[in-house]
């Protein structure tokens, strides 16, 4: 069975290589037969990788502990869902999983795009099949998941597997990696389309449309993956936080940041024919950062708590990246004439410049995160000392960046193209600015002195109001024109320009998340060794340990602390943080108990045993506003989905160059009049 699986991987690799060669040869020699054959090869490669994945899954599900991979990542008593998770739970399997997703994307992208982009699809095929071949090559020659355990010449089976780390046995952890992979791998599609358009010097915006849609889909997956990871860290790891600036977390954030920059700056290209080089660089950088992130997760380049699969394959990634960057650089340099800008910046206060600043600042953030992540590597190279930087560095740089971005989120969409008149500034921003300043003053009067938090709340109010006003004004126009009630008018408005209003929803989601981030300025944490009957006071809350219940079963030993929570003297509820000791893996874990509220979470951890072993140590976090992050996450997904819905009325794709000076308000009026 495992031989069949390996054979499928090997054939998949060869077929992918064939697809690259056939697509390129077919295109260059104008041989349609070869081009079509490359597209069929893409399908065969997908079938082969699917078969290989199926065989690995079958081995996992049937507890075939002759396979080294199965023995190290699964065990007989593992829940079914986590057996599926074992597919991507380790190095070899996750590379196969990566390849399978890559093959799926290639198949879908090629077969949905082959009619629409007839003259460039072969390059798309070649680029995507090439990436896929690289990963299949790794699976085939460097990280074979079908390797069996040998003792001498004999194949031996382990009596039982190692099992999956208990911390990873969580529903969120079962979907977090696939989402992240869908993001990481998916950025290959927009990259391939962008490169193919560059190679063939595509005229027009059709390829931009395709690239943008694919970028949005991938960006959404990546965002969901990152947020699920944060959420998992929060509910499982028991340190009261959701983001630790760990190298692997950073690696997943980097392409998401450049992807965000691309989604904004590509509008400049669509509407004004500007920033063409920049956009190609951005989408390429996003793809490279995805490969880089994949490498970080397994390369052992930087030590990380996520280093679940350290190995020597990092070097292949380095070569692949260098090759890809080299080819991309050559293509860009050799086609600078094609990438010439069709317009130039007119004014500092304009839509164009807000996109420009948005990009500068996102790139600065990306650079800072990359720099901090690679600091140990760089410092070791420069001075011989391996120096790491921690959360203070990342926060110090990224908090002001985040606030500036938040500000741009509010003003950017309301600036007119080319230049914005003072009159339009006053009309659009007078009331939001006054209202949010009043809120800031009120918060200050209420005793909030944390500078960044004050700025953040004020900006959040500002942005939220501008967005609400946009919906309101647009809906009023529709109401007047079609006599609809307000809510249907809002829906109709959104449907007419899903990209714009979906974008506003995503902006609103960012506002909600920033409210949650700012809440962290007021976090409280306290811990204490508690004997039964003892109390611990944190903020307005009081926590009393009323007892500890112990239990033991085949899987784990458990101790549950019963903690009564009172606020301002009133009893609220009993919370039950737990500690478990897993027999199979000999690992203890804490299971936190959280009281989720919109105002603040109460987060109780049975953190450990006092040094003399008698009493539990109870740790309490009060995390104000943190739930708004998760609420924002849902809105982010919803907003992106809205933006992906096709517009109800297709507006003519003529560039807004002629009507460039149209103020946003007039633009939305225009949209409603189509």
């Amino acid at each position, binding site marked *: 069975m495992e031989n069949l699986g390996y054979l499928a991987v090997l054939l998949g690799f060869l077929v992918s290589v064939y697809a690259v060669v056939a697509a390129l040869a077919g295109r260059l020699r104008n041989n349609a037969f070869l081009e079509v054959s490359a597209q069929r090869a893409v399908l065969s490669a997908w079938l082969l990788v699917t078969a290989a994945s199926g065989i690995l899954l079958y081995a996992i599900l049937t507890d075939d502990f002759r396979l080294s991979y199965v023995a190290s990542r699964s065990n007989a008593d593992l829940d079914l869902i986590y057996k599926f998770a074992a597919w991507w739970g380790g190095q070899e399997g996750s590379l196969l999983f990566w390849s399978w997703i890559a093959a799926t994307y290639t198949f879908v992208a090629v077969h949905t795009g082959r009619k629409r982009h007839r003259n460039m699809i072969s390059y798309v095929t070649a680029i995507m099949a090439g990436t896929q071949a690289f990963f299949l090559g790794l699976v085939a020659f460097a990280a074979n998941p079908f390797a069996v355990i040998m003792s001498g010449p004999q194949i031996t089976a382990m009596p039982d597997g*190692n099992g999956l780390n208990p*911390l990873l046995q969580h529903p969120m952890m079962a979907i977090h990696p696939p989402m992240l992979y869908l993001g990481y791998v998916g950025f290959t599609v927009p990259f391939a389309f962008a490169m193919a358009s560059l190679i063939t010097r595509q005229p027009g915006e059709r390829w931009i449309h395709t690239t943008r849609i694919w970028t949005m889909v991938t960006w959404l997956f990546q965002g969901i993956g990152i947020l699920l990871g944060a959420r998992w860290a929060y509910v499982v790891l028991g340190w009261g936080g959701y983001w630790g600036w760990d190298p692997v977390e950073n690696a997943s954030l980097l392409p998401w940041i450049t992807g965000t920059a691309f989604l904004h700056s590509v509008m400049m290209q669509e509407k004004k024919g500007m920033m063409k080089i920049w956009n190609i660089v951005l989408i390429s950088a996003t793809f490279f950062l995805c490969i880089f992130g994949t490498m970080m997760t397994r390369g052992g380049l930087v030590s990380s708590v996520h280093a679940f699969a350290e190995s020597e394959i990092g070097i292949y990634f380095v070569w692949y990246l260098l090759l890809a960057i080299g080819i991309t650089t050559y293509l860009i340099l050799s086609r600078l004439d094609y990438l010439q800008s069709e317009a130039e910046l007119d004014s500092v206060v304009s839509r164009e410049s807000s996109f420009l600043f948005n990009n500068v600042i996102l790139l600065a953030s990306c650079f800072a995160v990359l720099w901090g992540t690679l*600091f140990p590597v760089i410092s070791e190279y420069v001075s011989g000392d391996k120096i790491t930087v921690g959360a203070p560095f990342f926060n*110090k740089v990224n908090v002001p960046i985040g606030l500036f971005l938040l500000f741009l989120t509010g003003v950017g969409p309301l600036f007119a193209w080319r230049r914005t008149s003072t009159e339009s500034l006053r009309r659009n921003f007078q009331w939001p600015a006054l209202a949010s300043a009043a809120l800031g003053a009120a918060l200050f009067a209420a005793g909030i002195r944390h500078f960044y938090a004050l700025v953040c709340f004020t900006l959040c109010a500002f942005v939220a109001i501008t967005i609400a006003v946009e919906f309101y004004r647009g809906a009023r126009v529709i109401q007047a024109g079609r006599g609809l009630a307000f809510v249907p008018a809002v829906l109709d408005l959104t449907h007419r320009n899903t990209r714009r209003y979906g974008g506003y929803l995503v902006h609103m989601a960012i506002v909600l998340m920033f409210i949650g981030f700012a809440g962290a300025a007021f976090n409280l944490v306290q811990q204490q060794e508690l004997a039964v009957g003892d109390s611990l006071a944190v903020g307005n809350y009081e926590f009393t340990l009323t007892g500890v219940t112990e239990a033991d079963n085949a899987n784990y030993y458990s101790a549950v602390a019963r903690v009564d929570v009172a606020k301002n003297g009133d009893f609220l509820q009993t919370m039950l943080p737990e500690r478990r000791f897993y027999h199979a893996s000999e690992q203890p874990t804490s299971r936190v108990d959280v009281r989720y509220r919109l105002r603040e979470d109460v987060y109780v951890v049975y953190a450990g045993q006092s040094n003399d072993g008698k009493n539990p*140590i109870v*740790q309490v976090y009060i995390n104000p506003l943190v739930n708004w992050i998760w609420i924002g996450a849902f809105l982010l997904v919803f907003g992106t989905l809205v933006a992906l819905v096709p517009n109800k009325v297709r507006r003519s794709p003529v560039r807004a160059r002629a009507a460039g000076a149209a103020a946003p308000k007039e633009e939305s009026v225009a949209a409603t009049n189509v």
Partner: protein
Amino acid sequence: MNKQVKFVVIIAAIVVTLAWMGVSGVEQSATYYVTIEELFAMDDAAAKRIRVGGDVAVGSIVRSAGDVRFTITQQDETMPQPKALDVVYTGDDPLPDTFRDRAQALCDGRLRADGKFEAKKIQAKCASKYEAQPGQEAAPVYESAPATASD
């Protein structure tokens, strides 16, 4: 003012501000990441924030009221005998679940004048059970447990 100049000035201001914040952020949190051997070889180790890694020596963990004391060791083929470092953990947080005999521990803190290492923060990941099995050909795999006690 010329518009190009305006853009250059604004972007330069942004970049300089961020660079300045970055530098001060590095100063606040730069930590030297060393092995025990490198720690012993450092000239001014006492003056720096240090993260040192090693394996927790079997039976060395002594828990008492104020602190936890243990020894971490480092050994490879080039060393005639293992290097050992005594660590005193004085941080506030309970030690991570993965911190046990033979675990790989990362200790953040400073080297004291008496040659002991005073740690404020410990990260640990334990070697997987499977790794110890005989007859396995694959490279050693470490099952990570992202557990951190921070101060």
